[in-house]
């Protein structure tokens, strides 16, 4: 079916890049001037001059016969950037600075100084795992670059990670490149999604990850450099860059290290998060998830009184006030500081009963969603029915939603209670955090850490 695409001038590089990455470099894409489009799009009358201005170009794109290249594009060559690079300087400082300038000019770095990834350092990093250097971990969106163990090691060296952290980094990259993890969305979306990286199991303590006060801040090399190694790996192997094909409008919160922390399994009153997923307590795992913007913060910290029930009630009220039931519902990661979790456990909550409580109490009344027009549908109810019909709401959960789509009904904001992921981390005193993203678990993967050579844990 012949057609033409419109993109604004701020997105034209992204659009053409995506077309080429997916093997269709000849797609006809027309540009709308961003400085005019974003201010004019709110009503048809203001959009009219833009439509008039591009009309003839649109007709031309629809009827002008194809060129030979458009009809039968030349094969795209394999892109290889695996050569070594020689950099010389008058002294070490000069050479170090030149490496950094070169890497940033090539868009291989994040703006902070990097550790030059020499062969010696990369070999030392690879020695932190039993996995072979040329083993392919996966393809990294959006450009589908091949992530081998060695290439991830190069980025891990750049980040300043220690070799003993490397098995954690590899497991996390397995998660990011899993086909069930929508990495394209996380890497490229205007939603400015920031990955959330959670380490569980004994390796967290062995490596010295922070799960207490300051866990999302600076000062702990495992948290900082594991997060940064992943950041650089995704940047370089996915070949993204702001304003080109990374369209995070504000940039990402925690852009350099992502939200990287460990669960406090010692003080948690419940089984560790990874055990709740079916792993053994002696396993070590890393979960990669994501978050739209930064987390919401609940609780009183050190200054205001709080109770566990009060925190949960606040979380529920905040979720209900959003009022929107996305077509595939949402995913939440609730990080409770240990004192809060302990208080909730004393009140009789288990992890599972807390998930079920959140699921039930956040349901939105039918009357609240039956009215407004929503994303081209007559109303949100129509939107939900469509989502059930085309499977975006899972068939096993469809009966619950169908039952709720009537006066007096209460529509869930998640597809199942399991979509409230509960993790215990934070200090004493502490706050409680709610990460969320629209959609159901399209960015949640947990992988077991294995192949470690330099730690007691994570070996098998």
């Amino acid at each position, binding site marked *: *079916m*012949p*057609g033409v*695409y*419109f*993109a604004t001038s701020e997105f034209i590089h992204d659009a053409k890049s995506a077309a080429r990455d*997916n*093997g*269709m470099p*000849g797609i006809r894409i027309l540009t709308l001037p961003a400085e005019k*489009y974003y201010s004019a*799009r709110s*009503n*048809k009358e*203001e*959009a009219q001059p833009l*439509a008039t201005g591009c*009309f003839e170009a649109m007709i031309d794109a*629809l*009827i002008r016969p*194809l060129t030979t290249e*458009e009809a*039968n*594009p030349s*094969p*795209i060559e*394999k*892109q*290889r950037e*695996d050569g070594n*690079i*020689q*950099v010389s300087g008058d*002294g070490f400082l*000069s*050479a170090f600075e030149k490496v950094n300038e070169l890497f940033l000019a090539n868009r*291989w770095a994040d703006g902070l100084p990097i550790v*030059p*990834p*020499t*062969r*010696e350092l990369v070999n030392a990093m690879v020695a932190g795992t039993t996995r072979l250097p040329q083993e392919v971990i996966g393809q990294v969106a959006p450009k589908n*670059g*091949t992530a081998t163990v060695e*290439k991830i090691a*190069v980025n891990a060296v750049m980040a300043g990670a220690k070799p003993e952290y490397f098995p954690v980094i590899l497991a996390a990259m397995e998660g990011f490149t899993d086909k069930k993890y*929508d990495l*394209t*969305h996380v890497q490229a979306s*205007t939603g400015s999604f920031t990955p959330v990286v959670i380490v569980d199991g004994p390796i967290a303590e062995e490596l010295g990850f922070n799960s207490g006060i300051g866990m999302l801040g600076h000062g702990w090399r495992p948290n900082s450099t594991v997060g940064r190694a992943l950041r650089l790996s995704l940047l370089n*192997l996915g*070949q993204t860059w702001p304003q080109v094909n990374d369209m995070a409008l504000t940039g990402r919160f925690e852009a350099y290290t992502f939200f990287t922390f460990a669960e406090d399994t010692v003080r948690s009153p419940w089984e560790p998060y990874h055990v709740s997923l079916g792993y053994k307590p002696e396993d070590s795992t890393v979960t990669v998830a994501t978050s739209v913007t930064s987390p919401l913060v609940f609780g009183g910290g050190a200054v205001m009184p709080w109770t566990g029930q009060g925190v949960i009630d606040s979380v529920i009220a905040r979720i209900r006030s959003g009022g929107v039931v996305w077509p595939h519902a949402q995913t939440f990661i609730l990080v409770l500081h240990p004192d809060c979790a302990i208080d909730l456990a004393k009140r009789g909550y288990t992890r599972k009963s807390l998930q079920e409580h959140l699921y039930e109490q956040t349901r939105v009344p039918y009357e609240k969603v039956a009215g407004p027009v929503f994303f*081209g*549908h007559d109303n949100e109810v129509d939107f939900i029915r469509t989502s059930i019909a*085309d499977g*975006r709401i899972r068939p096993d959960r469809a009966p619950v939603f169908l039952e709720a789509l009537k006066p007096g009904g209460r529509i869930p904001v998640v597809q199942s209670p399991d979509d409230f992921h509960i993790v215990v981390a934070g200090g004493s005193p502490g706050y409680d955090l709610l990460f969320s993203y*629209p*959609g*159901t678990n*399209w960015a949640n993967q947990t992988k077991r850490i294995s192949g470690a050579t330099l730690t007691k844990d994570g070996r098998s």
Partner: protein
Amino acid sequence: MANVVGGLSSADEAAVRLEVLNPRGEIPPPPTRGINSRVSSLDGKKIVLVDNGKFGANNFLDALADILKEKYPKATIVMYPKPTAQTITNVPKWYPTVKQQGDLFVFGVGD
């Protein structure tokens, strides 16, 4: 004495040469495909205006629809909104349904 990291110094004792690895990997080339042949005229055709769900795309496409109706009165305009602005889960199943709606499409607005 020269500082040497990862390589040999040059004839100048103070000079340092660093040999570093490229952090990027290979990109397997995708199979290429051409785009579909064009129509010779819009007269009598069914033109599908695909709203990608982003804010304001409907207003721009509505404005285009008005001009199309005026300039091509023999064409039929079909407004076909994408069910969600998001590209996740089962939306790929929706794209083939665009073909069933008409003869050619206009998709917007990528933002």
